[in-house]
């Protein structure tokens, strides 16, 4: 336990010390939430129920985005550089072991998600958000989404060079920010693109988080899509992950 605690503390300290990672995990989500809640330029009407404000749609979307930013992009970049700097290799010669290293990384992602929620939820409430929480499906969606995006992030970090991982993780973040349904409703996308976007873990996560904050369980299709990604991506990551730096 002492080793796991020390590793978790280190992961958290380094994540919170890293300015880029703070910008990604907190800065951008807060900025998007505040901007689009106050500036009514997004075509959100189709998603708004009677008496809803834009923030009621935006807040769950931005919380889902926060999950992706940490579990995928943040984890991928940090782990990619740890691998290229030989940190993972070096830790491999200690009694820590891979299960505890992985547990510490997952623990750090979860703690950061809690911090993200603790910052974003009050901001959204101030902006007039009025959620009706259904906690169990919401937590289920968060767990599956975290698993899917962490799997994707670790797949990149464990197979690519750190610089490529950096570029790809940020690039995917932008692409999925546009196609993921986080802030722009999928209904606005042209048909083939919309079908493609609906099969991605991002849109499934957004649907389920929105439902969870709307007192609902969410569409079965979204659960299936997200669950498939949540199993497949970590499996691929586990099978392909290389601990030593790319030669």
């Amino acid at each position, binding site marked *: 336990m002492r080793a796991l605690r*020390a590793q978790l503390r280190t992961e958290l300290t380094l994540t919170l010390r890293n300015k880029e990672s703070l910008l990604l995990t907190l800065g951008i989500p807060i900025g998007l939430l505040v901007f689009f809640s106050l500036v009514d330029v997004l075509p959100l009407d189709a998603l708004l129920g009677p008496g809803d404000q834009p923030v009621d749609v935006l807040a769950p979307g931005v919380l889902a985005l926060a999950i992706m930013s940490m579990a995928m992009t943040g984890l991928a970049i940090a782990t990619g550089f740890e691998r290229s*700097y030989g*940190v993972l*290799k*070096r830790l491999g010669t*200690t009694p820590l072991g891979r299960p505890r290293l992985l547990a510490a990384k997952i623990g750090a992602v979860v703690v950061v998600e809690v911090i993200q929620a603790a910052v974003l939820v009050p901001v959204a409430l101030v902006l007039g958000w009025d959620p009706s929480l259904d906690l169990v499906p919401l937590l289920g969606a968060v767990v599956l989404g975290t698993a899917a995006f962490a799997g994707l992030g670790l797949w990149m970090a464990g197979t690519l060079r750190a610089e490529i991982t950096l570029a790809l993780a940020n690039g995917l973040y932008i692409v999925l920010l546009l196609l993921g349904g986080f802030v722009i409703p999928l209904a606005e996308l042209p048909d083939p693109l919309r079908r493609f976007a609906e099969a991605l873990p991002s849109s499934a996560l957004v649907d389920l988080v929105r439902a969870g904050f709307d007192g609902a369980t969410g569409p079965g299709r979204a659960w299936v899509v997200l669950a498939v990604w949540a199993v497949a991506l970590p499996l691929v990551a586990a099978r392909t992950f290389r601990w*030593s730096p790319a030669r």
Partner: protein
Amino acid sequence: MSAVSVEHLVVRHGDLVAVDDVSFTADAGEVLALLGPNGAGKTSTVEVLEGYGRPHAGRVRVLGHDPGTERDRIVGRIGVMLQDGGVYPGIRPPEMLHLLAAMYDDPADPDALLERVGLADRAGATWRQLSGGEQQRLSLAMALVGRPQVAFLDEPTAGVDVRGRQVIRQIVRELADGGCAVVLCTHELDEAEKVADRVVIVDRGKVVATGTLDELRSGTSGEVRFSAVPELDVDALGQHLGADVTEVAPGEYVVADGGHDSHLAAKLTGWLANHDVALGDLRAGRQRLEDVFLLLTADEAEPDVRRAMEPKRRGRRGRRS
């Protein structure tokens, strides 16, 4: 039982044979240097001992266990210094040492260790803000924090200034004196000479020579080395001196057993003067180590030097026996 034993180790990276039938042992309390040029297979050898690479052939044991399959039995008892760090770029030295200390049952005091390697005043800097020498000293401290019984140090003084080297060598010496078996990789002869009890010279994956420093330095022969113009008549000179003379490289000569003859220098300079040849320099001691190392580190671009040296040596020995 040796703390580290390597028997007929073979490691391949694709088609490249990085380690080709290497054998050696290291005992508790000694510093064993793997000495060789870059690409000789030192790191590949040590990686197998650390449990990273699997051998393609041969058998290695660390503290009696197979590092590939019994990793759990040794990770708490070995200390590792990688060639390039293995440290979080944004971490501070005390944080890294405290992290590692938490992983071992009976760790050294991280703060005292930081003091010992001279980094106490750099506690607030992150790894990427440290100089190359400071990074090496932190890496060394990382290898020591678990109080290891076996330490693997890969090029511990690379990129370190003179004072830093002295600190690192002194710590390595104390580590071995405390009963640890130290396996140290280096491409510098000087490093091996200053810190190692025994040296294994490797080149292109093969062991070229093994022995204590004294054995490698002088062997039993007490050779004397001198330089002059190339292609002297070594047979005639040998008769004059009463000892075998070999031209080990163009213009570079070794007199076997010359060290036992107190008049050798006079006889040699006399003979050279009679033949109108100027003596370049004359050195006793260290010959074999320098010879072997010179031979194996001879530039790839000058294969004639290697070729010139090898057959002549063989021929010389043949005649002697």
